[in-house]
């Protein structure tokens, strides 16, 4: 081995989606960063479905992108089909999604990381964390080498005590063919972190050549694709189609007859799985009245001969998998290249984390990704980015990078995790956000890029592009607020709005029903000079106008509570007038803000009042 530095600002353990974003974000922030992975070749591996984005998840990717993260750009680079979900619905709930070529994605991600300044990548296996005075200072590799750092980000996914189940067979490991980090797992348990157990599953992979597509429904991508990254301007690969088929009564019959052999049902797995991504065994059982379930046949890549059958994740024995799959139209002669399996793994109860994703127990130790009980590449990436930046900021005193619920889905994700914990793998839904109409994929840059700039994590190129875009949109809004017309004049163009003599601005007009920008071009020809993305912002503001006011009011109320910081060294027992029960709840959660305290289950208004005034008064005193 060549001479390596043994001292870094930040060490990131794991090269999955959380690890990639964490390492890149940390390096972007200017910290000397070391990414440690079992194998460079597995960096950026998509271990489950070959797709990124969707409703809620697409929001997360756009937000990662707005903060100059990698997932958006790399998934555009690997995109072989664009399909925006909810295209027919309103802008707040549309979800950009791509099918991504696994090989291209991985290669591009590795290429970017290997060429990132401030970032070094080491192949190795971490067996222990170096922890001194309750502070993480580095790691020990299995070859005995020690590497030191100011902070450590742990993004080991399902590798903590992972067990793979295929039917009655059990294999220790995090992904098929890879080792599980049991030693590290033990060490973490020794630090008394509360650990829970979850499960997830994946479907068998099929050989494309063995599938008969001729009678299946073809699903094409969008004609005018919506890109994942704000920077992408064109598709990078030839675009492919997916196919749709369905299970039937025969399929369900075989599954039911063999249900006792499924790891989920034979008692081998008791942990909770995601309810929104159930195994086919689950679906057949829980929704017995349905005589078919959809199966989407998704190609794993342009040159791949493997198909990912989305919808039939299973932990039945391999021979049963083959039997039931062959009852499905188009799959009669199908060959399985890798059987489906269920995996059980440990996760850290995320209520033990701060909103920076640093652990409350051990300073400078950060957890991000699936290890915190989430599922999905996007959820992992989002946490990685936040943990990476904050790990980098550890070298500075009193600096942190926190995105709150009112700013982004990333904030919703982290707040949900640290305040409520998880009881099943956590996935993002748009319904989790109180401010859904404001937190849209189309305005992720407006919401976040300036915050990113202030925190020095945005590249020059993106800064200049964003500033230009922002200026144009602002110009359009100014133009639309300042240009007015009387109803009388307006109605001469063939409209019939109320005649109250009051001048109406373009914005006012657009918020009336049945009036859109297209109709206004001949009154104000200058409108046509603005680019589509700016017009889109104007129109969205109009569609949602009354509702956005309400959400902004809510946000202001929310911010007020969030702006009241609770000092880390607060002694809850010194607050007068609150019960022991309340003190315990506060001790356990250590809320950072009054708002966070109000989201702890069972906290009373009286307790909040006392906390509020205590903090306010002590802040007041400390000023003198």
């Amino acid at each position: 081995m060549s001479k390596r530095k043994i001292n870094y600002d930040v060490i990131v353990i794991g090269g999955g989606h959380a690890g990639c974003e964490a390492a890149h974000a940390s390096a972007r922030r200017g910290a000397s960063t070391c990414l440690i992975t079992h194998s460079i070749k597995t960096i950026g591996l998509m271990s489950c479905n070959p797709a990124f984005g969707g409703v809620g998840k697409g929001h997360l990717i756009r937000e990662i992108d707005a903060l100059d993260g990698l997932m958006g750009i790399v998934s555009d680079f690997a995109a072989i089909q664009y399909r925006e979900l909810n295209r027919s619905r309103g802008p707040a709930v549309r979800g950009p999604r791509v099918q991504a070529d696994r090989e291209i994605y991985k290669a591009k991600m590795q290429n970017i990381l290997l060429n990132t300044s401030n970032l070094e990548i080491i192949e190795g296996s971490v067996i222990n964390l170096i922890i001194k005075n309750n502070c993480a200072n580095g790691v020990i590799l299995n070859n005995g080498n020690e590497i030191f750092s100011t902070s450590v980000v742990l993004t080991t996914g399902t590798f903590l005590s992972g067990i793979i189940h295929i039917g009655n067979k059990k294999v220790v490991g995090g992904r098929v063919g890879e080792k599980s980090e049991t030693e590290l797992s033990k060490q973490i348990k020794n630090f008394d972190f509360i650990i829970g157990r979850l499960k997830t599953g994946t479907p068998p992979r099929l050989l494309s050549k063995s599938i008969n597509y001729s009678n299946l429904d073809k699903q094409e991508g969008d004609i005018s694709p919506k890109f994942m990254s704000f920077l992408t301007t064109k598709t990078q690969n030839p675009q492919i189609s997916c196919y749709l088929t369905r299970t039937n009564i025969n399929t369900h019959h075989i599954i039911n007859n063999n249900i006792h052999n499924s790891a989920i049902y034979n008692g081998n797995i008791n942990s909770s799985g995601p309810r929104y991504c159930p195994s086919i065994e689950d679906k057949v059982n829980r929704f017995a009245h349905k005589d078919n379930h959809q199966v989407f046949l998704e190609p794993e890549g342009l040159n791949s001969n493997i198909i990912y059958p989305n919808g039939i994740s299973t932990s039945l024995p391999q021979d049963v998998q083959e039997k039931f799959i062959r009852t499905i139209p188009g799959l009669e002669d199908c060959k399985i290249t890798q059987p489906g399996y269920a995996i059980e793994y440990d996760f850290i109860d995320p209520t033990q984390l701060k909103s920076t994703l640093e652990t409350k127990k051990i300073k400078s130790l950060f957890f991000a990704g699936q290890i915190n009980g989430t599922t999905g590449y996007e959820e992992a990436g989002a946490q990685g980015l936040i943990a990476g930046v904050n790990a980098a900021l550890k070298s500075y005193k009193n600096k942190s990078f926190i995105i709150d619920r009112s700013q982004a889905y990333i904030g919703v994700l982290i707040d949900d995790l640290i305040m409520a914990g998880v009881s099943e793998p956590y996935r993002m839904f748009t319904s989790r956000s109180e401010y859904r109409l404001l937190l849209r994929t189309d305005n992720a840059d407006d919401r976040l890029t300036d915050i990113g700039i202030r925190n020095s994590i945005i590249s020059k190129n993106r800064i200049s592009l964003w500033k230009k875009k922002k200026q144009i949109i602002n110009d359009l809004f100014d133009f639309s607020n300042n240009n007015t017309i009387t109803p009388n004049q307006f109605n001469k163009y063939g409209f019939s709005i109320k005649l109250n003599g009051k001048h109406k601005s373009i914005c006012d007009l657009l918020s009336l029903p049945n009036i859109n920008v297209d109709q206004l071009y001949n009154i104000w020809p200058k409108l046509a000079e603005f680019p589509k993305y700016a017009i889109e912002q104007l129109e969205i503001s109009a569609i949602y106008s009354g509702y956005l006011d309400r959400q902004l009011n809510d946000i202001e109320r929310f911010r007020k509570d969030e702006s009241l910081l609770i000092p880390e060294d607060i002694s809850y027992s010194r607050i007068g007038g609150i019960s022991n029960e309340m003190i315990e709840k506060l001790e356990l959660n250590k809320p950072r803000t009054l708002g966070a305290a109000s989201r702890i289950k069972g906290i009373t208004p009286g307790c909040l009042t006392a906390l509020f005034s205590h903090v306010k008064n002590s802040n007041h005193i400390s000023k003198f």
Partner: protein
Amino acid sequence: MGSFLKNFGNNSTIFAFSSGSVPSGVGIIRISGPLSLKCAKIITGDEPKKPRIVELKNFVNPNTNDYIDRGLMIWFNKPNSFTGEDIIEFHTHGSMAVVDLLYEILLSIDNVRIAEPGEFTRRSFENNKLNLEQVEGLVDVINAETKIQLDHANKLLLGNLGELTENLRVKLLALLSEIEAAIEFEDDGIVLDTFKNLNLKIDSISEIINDILVNYQNSQIIRDGLIISIIGPPNVGKSSIINRLTNSDVSIITNIPGTTRDIVEVKLKLFGYPVLLRDTAGLRHAQDVVEKIGVEKSIESIKQSDLIISVTDNELDLPIDLNTYNITDNTSIIEVQNKSDLIRDFNKNDIIYISAKTNFGFEKLLSHIKIILESKFNQTKNKMYLISRKRHHEIFQEISNSLISFKKQTELELKAEDLRFGIQSLGKITGRVDVEDMLDKLFNEFCIGK
């Protein structure tokens, strides 16, 4: 960006009746926030001239120009007030009618709303008006307040309202989860067969809400008293009947100066029941404008009445034809013929013959009134806990508005927004509804996920 978005800020102006319960001799309505002075101007016509000076004012309904009450107004200027904001206090007569009217007027002003429990205190904290010791004392008060609210909520849960609101919550949640399922998962291939009937479902929920709102009117009877109007042509002895009623088995609680020019209103307890007795102007074809207004008000009063005592006398033989006034089925009518000492012929069974002069027939009239009062109060007793508080009424009104907006919206996410707002409003009575509740419902009912 987002320059559409005016009306920033939750810095709304809040108000509440802050002197305990009504009826009482004097009631204080306290208003705090940036619009306090504007509220004062709307109700009294003027902004207060100087802070901390008591002014005697007429309170007038700006929409109708009706005189409401005469009382005191005080302005505590910011930042020297209790909350640190401009505070206006109206000291009115503590009558429910007056307080209700003022509430309605204040609620009609943009950005003015009823204060949440503890909100005045909260604002004074925020503005650094209280020190730690003062706060500790107040925490107990707020905890107690919360307990009372909790008890109250529990009490509600035992009665009809509890069942109704729970029923409502379940229905709204089911609807929301259906919509959210469509938003999150429709493109994953879940099929929602019931989805077309969204508006039908919302109609059935609206019906429940409307029932509650209507029942609120009923429960007002319990709280404010039954309205009994004495009507009839001039000089048939209406006033003497009133005097008889108020002097016999009754005790006067308050004597409110007429809220309208020509109606004298007396609040009293009759056989233990709260009653508002109204002596109306004589009904006849009015000659001049002033009298015409009086007659119109009488007619208005007739329409609001729970019980009408229609008085005629011997000399003017025709009673008032009540059919012309669109009186609802809920209103009971007693026809009384006064001055019966002057006649012999008591030939009509449905008429009570009395003589205010000789006291003849009064026993019978009173027992008749008693029977009607009992039946009216029993009718509403089952529904007694139905939103008897203005705050609850406002909440249900909010829910109702959300549902109306829901029906108008075409975009699914805005429908969801309306529903969420409705559910959030309901949460103010039943406790919070979590996203998790909705997701539970969603996952249990739909086969979701690829």
